[in-house]
């Protein structure tokens, strides 16, 4: 056992862990952060888009030195069938603002930077050190963690579990269950190297401008899933993710989906001549509001993915992670400054503050969405994209058929595929879940 005792131990150096460690250390707490990877970011996987606002709250001048790839000026939503995509593109010069709202980032670089800020704030960061279990006293209070360095333990008043989606420590201690297969998506991604000017030409971008494509449809073969393509400075990141339960039921393999996505006639030309730089896979918590476990207890709090704090509908995760980390850090600092113990009745402050934030409010808004998309995935991800593509083609193809007949054919295709009642009920349920 190390003789040293800390005010707080943060397990994990991802977005939520770094936010928590930074917040506490900059408020004068004695903080130890443990990271299993060789350096912060080496094990962390994200698309990745950074939401400036939430980081600004923590580090206002982050734009001065954070490694940012491109600021996003264009968002494309695509519904895809096997040969086409029907898209809505939103591009605005308003996004070329002095303090842009969204950036693409490469986590391996960004997290290194964030961790440097954490160290500069005064926290001690240990890499290549895995917390293997929580150490409890006789009364069930968490008093520290055991590490994989010869099984040595180290003590603190409170442990912040920022350990990611699998959350081994928390589940091992019985604080929460292993996430269910229908509450996590498995996403695979690749990073393709392309010269900066080629990316600029292909996507109509100049300087640091960036573009995002998010796509759904037959690419997920009827499963609830999403494909994406993000532009970085000298590379594009692209990937696809589907619910683990769907993968299990369909026996599809993630890499074949990604290969098919890359080979889709709408995506292929965007990647032409590129060289794969890296590939990665990651689990994403998608259970939403109803899957959020207990977030605090005797001497511990949970932040980020470990707490299922991820908004799958808006594809936001890192901002919820950062915000939950910051709020946990603020709550712990307040409790500490008043000289109170890290008992559940005091740590409940974290949950109370989180409930008031956009994190829980947003998740609550979409609480019925995961169930809807899961049970009806084939309709939403296979049937409708195909119908829409047919309708669009029907509209643009000029072949001498009278327009009235074309419209009738389109309507008939929808009714045939889903029935009037089916269309009506899908629309109502979607509207209710979105409400």
């Amino acid at each position, binding site marked *: 056992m190390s003789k040293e005792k800390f005010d707080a131990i943060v397990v994990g150096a991802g977005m939520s862990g770094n936010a928590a460690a930074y917040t506490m250390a900059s408020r004068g707490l004695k903080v130890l952060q443990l990271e299993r990877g060789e350096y912060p970011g080496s094990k962390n996987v994200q698309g990745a888009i950074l939401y400036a606002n939430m980081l600004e709250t923590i580090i206002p001048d982050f734009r001065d030195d954070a490694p940012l790839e491109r600021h996003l000026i264009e968002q494309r939503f695509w519904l895809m069938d096997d040969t086409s995509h029907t898209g809505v593109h939103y591009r605005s010069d308003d996004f070329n603002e002095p303090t842009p709202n969204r950036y693409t980032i490469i986590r391996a670089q960004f997290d290194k930077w964030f961790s440097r800020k954490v160290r500069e704030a005064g926290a001690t960061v240990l890499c290549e*050190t895995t917390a293997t279990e929580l150490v409890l006293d006789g009364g069930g209070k968490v008093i520290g963690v055991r590490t994989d360095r010869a099984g040595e333990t180290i003590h603190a008043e409170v442990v912040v579990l920022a350990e990611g989606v699998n959350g081994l420590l928390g589940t091992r201690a019985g604080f929460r269950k292993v996430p269910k297969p229908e509450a996590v998506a498995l996403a695979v991604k690749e990073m393709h190297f392309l010269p900066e000017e080629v990316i600029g030409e292909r996507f109509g971008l100049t300087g640091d401008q960036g573009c995002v494509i998010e796509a759904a449809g037959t690419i997920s073969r009827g499963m609830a899933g999403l494909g994406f393509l993000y532009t970085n400075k000298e590379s594009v990141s692209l990937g696809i993710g589907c619910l683990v339960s769907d993968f299990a039921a369909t026996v599809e393999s993630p890499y074949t989906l990604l290969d098919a996505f890359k080979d889709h006639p709408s995506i292929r030309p965007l990647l032409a001549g590129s060289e794969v730089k890296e590939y990665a896979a990651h689990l994403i918590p998608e259970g939403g509001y109803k899957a959020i476990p207990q977030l605090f207890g005797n001497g511990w709090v949970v932040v980020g993915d470990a707490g299922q704090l991820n908004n799958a509908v808006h594809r936001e995760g890192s901002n919820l992670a950062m915000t939950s980390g910051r709020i946990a850090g603020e709550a712990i600092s307040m409790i500490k400054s008043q000289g109170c113990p890290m008992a559940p009745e005091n740590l409940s402050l974290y949950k109370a503050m989180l409930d008031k934030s956009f994190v829980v409010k947003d998740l609550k808004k979409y609480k019925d969405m995961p169930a809807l998309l899961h049970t009806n995935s084939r309709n939403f991800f296979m049937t409708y994209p195909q119908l829409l593509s047919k309708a669009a083609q029907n509209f643009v193809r000029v072949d001498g058929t009278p327009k009235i007949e074309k419209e009738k054919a389109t309507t008939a295709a929808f009714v045939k595929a889903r029935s009037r009642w089916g269309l009506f009920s899908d629309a109502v349920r979607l509207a209710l879940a979105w409400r």
Partner: protein
Amino acid sequence: MHIVVCIKQVPDSAQIRVHPVTNTIMRQGVPTIINPYDLFALEEALKVRDHHGGEVTVLTMGPPMAEEALRKALTYGADRAVLLTDRHFAGSDTLATSFALSQAIAQIGNSFGTPDIVFTGKQTIDGDTAQVGPGIAKRLNLVQLTYVAKITSIDLSARAITVERRSEGGTHVLKSKLPCLITMLEGTTVIRRGSLDDALRAARSEIVKWSAVEAGIEDITKCGLRGSPTVVKRVFAPTPREQKAVQIDTTEKRVRDIADELVASIFTHQPALQHELSSAGSA
């Protein structure tokens, strides 16, 4: 006893790529690591310290970011780290590097006690010259024991060390006096995992940083590009050979036939060999 280990931060050569357009090495985004051969030297040094007492000082020359490599060495359990960093060192070849390192080792001797053993890895994975270790030994007038596979014994009172040195013909068992310089062979040992307290200490340690002047270097012209007679004329990616290995189907044909064909093929490419072998056979 006092042991100095020289390490180098190198790009992870397994992850280096050549730029498809410009044909230059892409260093951007390539992770850096401690030269793997140096880890064998470091572990051997730590073992000697654990057994005989004393201190291990780790030394590197490089840009400020080389501090990462030193901090890692402290995590493994080294007692002290010195970073030799100065613009004057930029562009050093092996001659200039061994000069700067030997001066720094002398300065380490002045500041923290004269070293009994200086360790290096057998070579680095980026330069691959294996010249810096011997260069340091020569300049510091140390006995050099290169390609050492094992330290058999150290007798501190007699100031003697016995090592096994691997050479092409076999293994030398060498006895030498201390102080000496050892370049350590790979695969000799596995780097340890530092204790939690070592890791904590490493995370908080201030790394000693020396400029050329602070390292006691008076003659700057022997450093960096100016002190380096080596000139890199061109960097290029080797073009793949046209000849490819052929997989032979062994299921249909008898293995003896395949062997005969192979021998015949070798002899058509190397006629002298056939002559040599047949004359050797007749004699």
